[in-house]
Each structure stands twice: as structure tokens, then as C-alpha cells.
């Protein structure tokens, strides 16, 4: 997984330009009704996203779901690749809020 830290300043690239398995934060989704459905599925500004598979259509992961997406639409989503693996929620789950006990100590009921 090639997501080694980088010193380069953050830059916006198109979603389909991500490497396979690379994680990114969505910076902008073009404002068109065609993209509304995608936004309501979580592909909208501020969310984390992973490119699972290249091609047309390609596969992305947002929250816990995998979405098949035409490359034409993917090109209208602008993302900023995550600098480190740790920054991506998709990998480690949502950050724990301060009040919660540590993860492994509380098995499910």
C-alpha cells in the first residue's frame, strides 16, 4: 500500500487518479443533480474515501460500503490523498471520543 507520508503540500486530484487502495479525503464534488445520489451515499465534501478498483466503472469505498461508480462521474469528484494511513477512518474506524473505554477491553454484549 503506497501511502507513505509526504512533505508535499495538500493538492486536489480527481478521484480516478488515486492509486488502488489509496485513501483520500473528499474536497469537492461538482454541483450537479446527477451527483446528488452519490452525495447522499456519502461521497460528499469532507468524507473519507478509498479507491478499491480502477477501471470503468470503478469501485470506491466510503463509510462501510463499496460503491460501483462510472468513471465519468468519478472524474467530477476532487480528493486530497491522505498523507498517512492513520488519518483514514476507513482503515481504523471512527476515532474514539475521549469518554469511551479503550477498544479491545469491552467485548460486545
Amino acid at each position: 500500500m503506497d501511502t507513505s507520508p509526504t512533505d508535499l503540500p495538500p493538492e486536489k486530484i480527481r478521484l480516478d487518479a488515486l492509486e488502488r487502495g489509496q485513501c483520500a479525503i473528499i474536497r469537492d464534488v461538482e454541483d450537479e443533480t446527477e451527483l446528488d445520489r452519490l452525495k447522499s451515499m456519502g461521497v460528499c465534501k469532507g468524507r473519507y474515501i478509498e479507491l478499491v478498483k480502477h477501471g470503468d466503472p470503478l469501485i470506491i469505498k466510503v463509510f462501510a460500503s463499496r460503491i460501483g461508480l462510472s468513471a465519468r462521474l468519478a472524474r467530477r469528484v476532487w480528493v486530497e490523498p491522505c498523507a498517512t494511513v492513520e488519518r483514514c477512518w476507513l482503515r481504523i474506524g471512527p476515532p474514539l471520543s475521549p469518554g469511551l473505554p479503550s477498544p479491545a477491553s469491552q467485548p460486545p454484549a
Partner: protein
Amino acid sequence: MIETIQNKEIKENAGPFRIAFIGNPNCGKTTLFNQLTGLRARTANFAGTTVEHKVGSLGNSARNIQLIDLPGMYSLTAATPEEMVASEILRGIHPKIAQPDAVVVVVDASNLERNLFLVSQVLETDLPCIIALNMVDLARDDGMYVDPEKLHLEMGCPVIPMIARKGEGIDELRTEMLALAEPDALNFHWSRPEPVKCDACASCPYQSRFSYTEEVTARVVKNHGLAKPAVTEKLDRVFTHPFLGVVSFFAVMAAIFFLIFRAASIPMDLIDGAFASVGDFLTAHMPEGHLRSLLVDGIIGGVGGILIFVPQIAILFFALALLDETGYLSRAAFVMDKLMRHIGLPGNAFVPLVSAHACAIPAIMATRVISDRRDRLVTILVLPLMTCSARIPVYAMISALLFPHDAVKAALLFTGAYGLGIVAALIMAFVFKKTILPGESKPLIMELPVYKVPSIRSGMRYALDRTLVFIRQAGTTIFVISVILWFLATFPTSQAPEKALALAQQAETMAAAGQSDQAEALAYQAATMTQQHALSHSFAGQLGHIIEPVVKPLGFDWQIGIGIVSSFAAREVIVSTLAIVYGVGEKAVEDNTESLYDSLRRATRKDGTPIFTTATSVSLLIFYVLAMQCLPTQVITKRETGSWKWALFQLGYMSILAYSSALVAYQGLRALGVS
């Protein structure tokens, strides 16, 4: 508050307590709905739309509680007609359907961030609400535990953790719903979260709401770090592979077709046998006359002829339901998407196109997965061009006429006929997308849900439900048309020809003399002759004569004309009609098809030339590949498109296509010297 109570009383007096079910696609909402309503649910369209929903009652309660299954949706910001209707009903602004009294939001616990988006929107409608926290087992597999108590405090409404597929949590949810429907349920206190403030709505109205859902999720989810390896990712490496994915798709469809043609033959034979015995019983016990003829030939023959396809329809629905539940169907659409774009249709049009090779009816009903209306219409319009199983008897007849003893050529003819249907459908789809229904097809946005083991029970329930919709919708029309076609073929009655009378008399004499075998043969010959005579002189026969000039350029005579008239509602009827008009007798179709084919081959025009020449046979084959000739399909097209306009258009374009193609083939072959 007082006002609310009064409203509530008015609603109570007005009818049942209505609870709407809403949730993201693939959250298990329909499974849960079926668990709660069982067989009490029925499928209906929302008034004035083609948007379908299920309505059922919650059993075992004093109060009449009605459950409404709304279409799956990601947000109340409507993008499709389905979402539009659901959203309007929930917000109480639908012109015809009243706002429900309460809502159950079904939530996929393994994908809380996204599911809570819809929950927060529903809460803002101020309807009483219960959260069904479904699929907690999947969440656990992902290494997550959602705390229902914390979620309850965050959302201010009851939260029921459950695994609907396994029936866990169903009783708790039922109890909660009953409590909600109690007249004093308003004591139930809601501490709703503040409506989500939107700071940056101009650029992305979704942003702040998703930030909110992520925050809530972070507060209610405990990661226990026991994530199982993702089976879904491994399977998807094969099923979404550009090459392996397509190969496995065809393997899956081939298996389904094997199932349809193999497994369906048993119940089909049973249905056929049952109708035949009822017919025989009536023939034996009723006095001869029009009433008996109407019952046996008209109604039992006509209705039975369509109902025989019900097993195939049901099995296809069953298989599609299982495939859908596993999560595979969306992968099939995914891999076929790129290929389908070339003709202007989305990937999810492909499964209906393949299914239509068994029967166009379930295929048309399966086009609901296509979200764009134009894409869906185009798919519905071209589906009946695919070779359905009712065409097989016709193909078999023509291949026997052309290549009586050559299995290889007969196989090639079948392949050619199937290929012609497919090519015609693809070309017509392309043409429609360029002309009457223009516009680029909607680009693919499709969730690829986690693979699940399907439930046989819910698959069967779905198949039963869909099949009943078909029988209810098409039943009446088929009945009426059966009676009309019987009338056309029976009236005006004519005297039996003298030759037949003479034969019948001869048969009686022989029977009296003890030569029963010969007598029977003669009697059969006489009956066949009478039948042929009666049909030729009936309205149907006259219609055959009337349309003869029209079908003559295709190489058809008036007898084939009768066949075309009679197979208007069901194409396979032409085989038995031709058996009658060419004087073979109806029995021959069942007992000895060879004798039918032989007689057809020997049939001649008045000048002594054979009727079924190569050119005529090819022309007839092409006509039957491309013509509509299936009334039940038309009824379903009307139902799914919402108007007879499209059903009639379908009939019109297919008739023109069939006629002109048969014309070109016949005249072309003749010009090439093939007669």
C-alpha cells in the same frame, strides 16, 4: 399538545394506525417487513404512479395496525420517482396519500454513519419513530459494537437491536410498535436532537449532516478489534473482474436457465394434465353444445395455455430474488455496464434482457432496478423480442418443416432465431435511445452490498408475491381474450360438410359391424374434417381470408392468416391452429407431432405447389421471432409503464418490424431463386 391529541383521535376514527417502514437500500428492510407481516402483505402501486410498495397488517393486536413498506432510499432529497413518492408521503405533502402515524427506520448497524443520515432527516419530520438497528451480526463481524442505549439517548427514540434475517429482535420491535399505537402513546417522550444546522449548504448540503452522523457514530460505536477477513473483497476480485466477472455471470445465468427448463417441466406437465383432465371431464359429462365448447375450448384451453407458463415465471422470480439477496445481481450489473453502454443502456438492464429468454413477463417486472425512466422504458420495449419459451414450439415446427431429418441444421436454425431476437432487441434499443427516448443513459452509481447467504423462504415469498401480481393483472384480460378468440373461431356455425357426414355414417355402420378400430379412425377423420370446415367458415376463418392480401407478400396463405389471428394473444397457439386448418386434427399436436409436420409439408395451394416452401417457412419463422403476440406481456407493460400508450406502441413497432423483416426475407429469397 392538545391539538396533536385531537389530530390523533381523528386519525384513530378514520382508520388503522399506519406505520411506514423506511431505510437505505440493502439494510434488510424488506426482510424485516416480511417477517412482521408474513403472508398478510400485498403489493400495490401508489395511487397514480408505477411506484410499487407493500402493505401489510401487524397481526395479534387489538388495534388495526397497517405497515407500509416504502422504497429503499439514502435520503429524503428525492432523486428517483420512488424516492420522491416516499419522501412526499413521509413529509405529509403527497396529494393522495396521507402522512403515516409513525415511522420505523431500519438501520444497517455495520454502516451507521451513512444510515443515520436518513434517520436524522426522518426525525425532523416530527413523526413518532422507532429505530430498528438491524444486522448487528454484520457489525460484529466488522469488529464493531453499536450501543443501543447510547444511540437511544442520541436520537431520542426507541432503538431495537436485531438480526431480521434470523428473526432476532422481531418480537421486541413488535412490542414497541404496539406501544406506539396505544391511544395514550403520546405520553411517550421525545427528546429529539436539534435539527442539523447547515453551515456550508451552498457548496454541499450533505456535508454538515454527514459530519453530524460521523460524530454520533463515534459516540455510540465501540470498536472491539475483532474484524473478520473480508469475504466480500475476495469474492469481488472474481465477480467484478472485467473478464472473469463476465464469464461467471454467464455461468450463473446458464445454471438458472437449466433450472427453469428442467425444474419447471414437472409442474408444467401437472398443470397441463390438470387442465386436460378437467376438459376431458366436462367433455364426457356435459351435453354437446356451445356452452361445453366455450368452457373446454375457450376458457380451459385459453387460460390453461397461459397458466402453463406460471412455473417458469415463478422459478425465474425465485432465482432472481436469491441472486439479489446474495448481493450478486449488483455485481452482474457492474461487469456488464461497460458493454451495455455501447447500446445506450445501463448495466442493470442486462439481467432483465437475459431473463426474457425464459419469459418476458418477469423480465419486465425486473426492470424496476433501472433507476432512469427512459432507460427502463427502452428496456421494457425491447424485452419481448428475446426468444421466450413460448416461441420454442413454433421454432420446433418450422425447423421440422425445413430440415426434417437434420439435427445440425435444425440446431443452427434455433441459434439463428435466438440470435435474430437478440440482435433486433439491441438494434431497437439503440434506435429508441437515439430517437423517441433520447438522452445518455444514467451513469452507474451502484452500491455493492456485502455478500450474504440468501434465505430460501424470503425468495419463495418474493416469487409467490410476484407470480400472484402477474396472475391478478393478466388473469382477467386473458380470460376475456380467450372468450373472444373462442367466439371468433366458433361463430358463425356452419353445417358439417357432406363428406364428413358420410364418413361419420360409415363409421357408425362399421362400429355396428364390430370393426371398432376402423370405425374410430373414420370417426376421427370425420371430426377433423368438420373442425377444419367450421374454423374455415368462422369469423376467424373470414379474418384469415380478409388479411390474406396483406400477408400474401410474406408468402402466407389465408390458412396461415387464421394462425396469425388466433395467436394474437399467445403465439404458441399457431401450432394447434395450423393443425386444424390443414386438417390434421388437434389431437395430432399432442399424440404425434411428426404427422402434423408431414401434413404441413404436404399441404398445397390450389395450383398444387406446396405452401410451406423454404421461403415461406423462413418468413414465418422471422415473423414469429419478432412479432408481439403475447397479451399477458402487454398487460404487464401497461402496468409497469403506467399507460396503454407504451403497450400499444410496443405492439405497433414489433408488428411493423416483424412484417417488414418477413417481407424482406421472403421476397429476397424468392429473388435469389429460393422458392
